[in-house]
C-alpha cells in the first residue's frame, strides 16, 4: 500500500525534474512554468471547476484501463470505446425527446456503456494472438473517430447548422449544471461515483474483481482454481469498454451537448492519457482519481503556462510520456529489488 502511494509521487517528481529540460530549452524558467501551470488551473473558482470538468473523462478512461490491465488485457483502445459510447448514447439522447430526465439519463448512460463494451470486445483476439488486444483496440480508435465524423455529417446531422455535429441532445438527457455559472455538470459526479464506488468496489470487494486480479497475476494457478480465462477476458473487455464509453457520454451530455468528432484532445486523447493515469496509479481505482486530477491540472494549466512563458503547450504530452515511462521504470526497479532481497 505504501509503495503504491509512493509510485505516483516518485514518477511525478522524476517527470518534473526531467521535464525541466524542454522548458529550459524553450528559454523559460521551470519553476515559473510549473507555478503558472498550477496557477492557471487553480487560480480561481471557475478554473477549479474546469479541473473537475477535465478530470471526469480522464478518470473514466483511467479506470477503464486500470481494470483491463489488471487482467493483462492490454486495452489501448479506450479512445475508440469513448466514441462508441458517445455514439450510442447520443442516439438515445437525440431520438427520445419526450422522456423524463430520471429515465432518460440512466437510459443514455446504459447505452453509452453498451457502446463502449461492444467496441472493446474485438480485443478478445488476444486469446488467439499475441498482439490481438493491442492492435484491434487500437485500430478501432481510428475507425470510431471516422465513424463519428461520418455520422455527424449524414445520418446524425444537425439540421440547423453547418457544423459537423449531431442535433442537440434533448433537455431531458443533458447533464444538469450543478454549480451555476460554471460547467460543473452531473457527469462529474457520475464519474466520481463510478471510479470511487463502482470501480473500487468491483476490484476490492467482488468475486469478479478478485478473479480479474488473479488471472492477471497467474493464469495457470487461476485455471487450477477453477477460473475460466476466456470468460474472464470477455467480462473484462465488457467492463473496461463500458467505463470508457461513459467518458464519451460525459463529454456529450455534459459539455458539448452534441455529438462531434473531436470529443477528445489530439494528438494524445483521453484514451491514451488513460494509460498513463492507470499505470501511474498502480492500477488502483482510488489513485486513478487522484492522478486524473493531477493530469487535469497539468493539461488545463498548460494553456496558461504556454501563453505566458512561450513554452509550447505540448509540454503536457511530453510530461505524459515521461510520467508513464518513469512509472514503469520504478515498477521494474521495485520488483528487481524484491528479487535480490529474497
Amino acid at each position, binding site marked *: 500500500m505504501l509503495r503504491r502511494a509512493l509510485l505516483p509521487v516518485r514518477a511525478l517528481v522524476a517527470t518534473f525534474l526531467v521535464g525541466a529540460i524542454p522548458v529550459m530549452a524553450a528559454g523559460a524558467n521551470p519553476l515559473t512554468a510549473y507555478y503558472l501551470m498550477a496557477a492557471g488551473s487553480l487560480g480561481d473558482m471557475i478554473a477549479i471547476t474546469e479541473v473537475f470538468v477535465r478530470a471526469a473523462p480522464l478518470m473514466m478512461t483511467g479506470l477503464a484501463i486500470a481494470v483491463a490491465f489488471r487482467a493483462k488485457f492490454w486495452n489501448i483502445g479506450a479512445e475508440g470505446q469513448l466514441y462508441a459510447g458517445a455514439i450510442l448514447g447520443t442516439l438515445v439522447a437525440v431520438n427520445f425527446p419526450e422522456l423524463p430526465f430520471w429515465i432518460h439519463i440512466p437510459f443514455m448512460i446504459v447505452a453509452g456503456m453498451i457502446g463502449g463494451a461492444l467496441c472493446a470486445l474485438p480485443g478478445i483476439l488476444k486469446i488467439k494472438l499475441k498482439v490481438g488486444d493491442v492492435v484491434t483496440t487500437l485500430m478501432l480508435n481510428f475507425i470510431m473517430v471516422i465513424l463519428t465524423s461520418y455520422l455527424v455529417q449524414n445520418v446524425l446531422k444537425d439540421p440547423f447548422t453547418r457544423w459537423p455535429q449531431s442535433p442537440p441532445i434533448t433537455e431531458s438527457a443533458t447533464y444538469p449544471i450543478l454549480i451555476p455559472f460554471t460547467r460543473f455538470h452531473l457527469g462529474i459526479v457520475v464519474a466520481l461515483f463510478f471510479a470511487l464506488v463502482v470501480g473500487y468496489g468491483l476490484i476490492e470487494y467482488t468475486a469478479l474483481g478478485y478473479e480479474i486480479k488473479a488471472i492477471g497475476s497467474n493464469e495457470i494457478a487461476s485455471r487450477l482454481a477453477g477460473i475460466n480465462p476466456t470468460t474472464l477476458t470477455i467480462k473484462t473487455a465488457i467492463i473496461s469498454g463500458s467505463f470508457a464509453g461513459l467518458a464519451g457520454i460525459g463529454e456529450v451530455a455534459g459539455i458539448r451537448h452534441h455529438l462531434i468528432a473531436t470529443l477528445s484532445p489530439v494528438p494524445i486523447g483521453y484514451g491514451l492519457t488513460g494509460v498513463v493515469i492507470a499505470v501511474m496509479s498502480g492500477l488502483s481505482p482510488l489513485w486513478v482519481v487522484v492522478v486524473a486530477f493531477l493530469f487535469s491540472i497539468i493539461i488545463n494549466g498548460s494553456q496558461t503556462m504556454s501563453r505566458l512563458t512561450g513554452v*509550447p503547450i505540448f509540454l503536457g504530452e511530453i510530461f505524459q510520456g515521461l510520467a508513464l515511462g518513469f512509472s514503469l521504470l520504478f515498477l521494474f526497479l521495485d*520488483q528487481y529489488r524484491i528479487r535480490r532481497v529474497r
Partner: protein
Amino acid sequence: MQADLISLGFLIAMAAASIRIATSLMYATLGEMLTERSGILNLGIEGLMILGAMTAFITTYATHSLELGVIATILVGVAEGLIMSLVYGRIGTNQHVWGVAFTIANFGLAYFVYRLYFGGTAGSLSIITPYAPARIPILADIPILGPILFEQYAYTYVAIILFVVFAIVFKYTIWGLVITVVGDNPAAADTAGISVYRTRYVAVTLGAIFMALGGSFLSIAQFNAFLFEIVAGRGWIAIALVTIGNWKPMRCLFAAIFFGFIDALQLRLQVLGISEITLAGTTVAIPFQLFLALPYVLTILFLLIASRRADYPTALLTPYRREE
C-alpha cells in the same frame, strides 16, 4: 465515370501510386519486422514516425538540404533506438506499455520542437521543396512496368532494396540466422556463445532508424510540410503488417504495398468524386469515410485471418535472463 476506372492508364497510375504511398509503411514495417524477429515488440513506431517527420522537415527547412534532413533523421533514430534497446533489452517486461510511453513522449517532443521552432502561429504551414520522384532513365521507358516501378522516389527504391537485402540477410547470412535464433530460442543462442543482448540492441536500433525514416518520407517527400496528423496511424498498422507478412521480408513488403494500394484507391475515389456504385440495378451511396476507414478495418480482418497460422518468433515478448 466507371469506364474510367478500368482504363489501362488508370491501373498503371494506381499501381505506381500504391508503391509510392506505401513507402512510409514499408520502412515502418521493415523496422518492426527486424525488431520482432529478435524477440522484441516495439509499439513505439507511431511516435518514431512523427519524430522522424518533424526532424526531417525542420532540418531541411533550416538548412535547405534534403540530405541533411535525412541524416538528422537517422541520427535521431539512432539516439531513440539506443534508449529503446536498453529498455526493451534490459528491462524487457511490459513491452506493450513502454511502447505506448515512447509514443506519447515522442509525439509531445515532435510537436514541442516544431512549435518552438516555428513560433506560436497555430496552423502555420511552413513548406519546403520536397524530394521529387527520381525517374530512372531508360528503365522508365519500358511500357507498363516502367512508369510503375521506375518513376518512384529515391526513398522508395532504397526501401525496396532494403527489403531485398534483408531477405538475403535472413536466408543466406550468419546475421540473419543469429537474429532468428535469438528471437526463437535465446537460450540456444546464448549457449552458442552469441550475445543475446547485443543482437537485440542492434535489431531495435536499426528498427528505430527505419521507423524514423518512414516518418521522414511523409514530410520531405510525399508531402511538403509537417502536418500534425501526417502519420495517421501508419505506425500501428505496421505492427499488424508484420504479423500479416508472417515475419518474412518479402511478404511484409507485399503487405505494405497492398495497404498502399488501399490508401491510393481511397484517394483516387475521393478525387473522382465517386460516391455511389450501381450493382445489379440498385445504387448504393458510398461515403468517403468508408475508404478512409478501410485500412484500419482491413488490418483487423487480416489479423484475424493471420492468427490461425501465425509463425511468430517463439520467444517474442519474453525477456531473456540467464538464471543465475
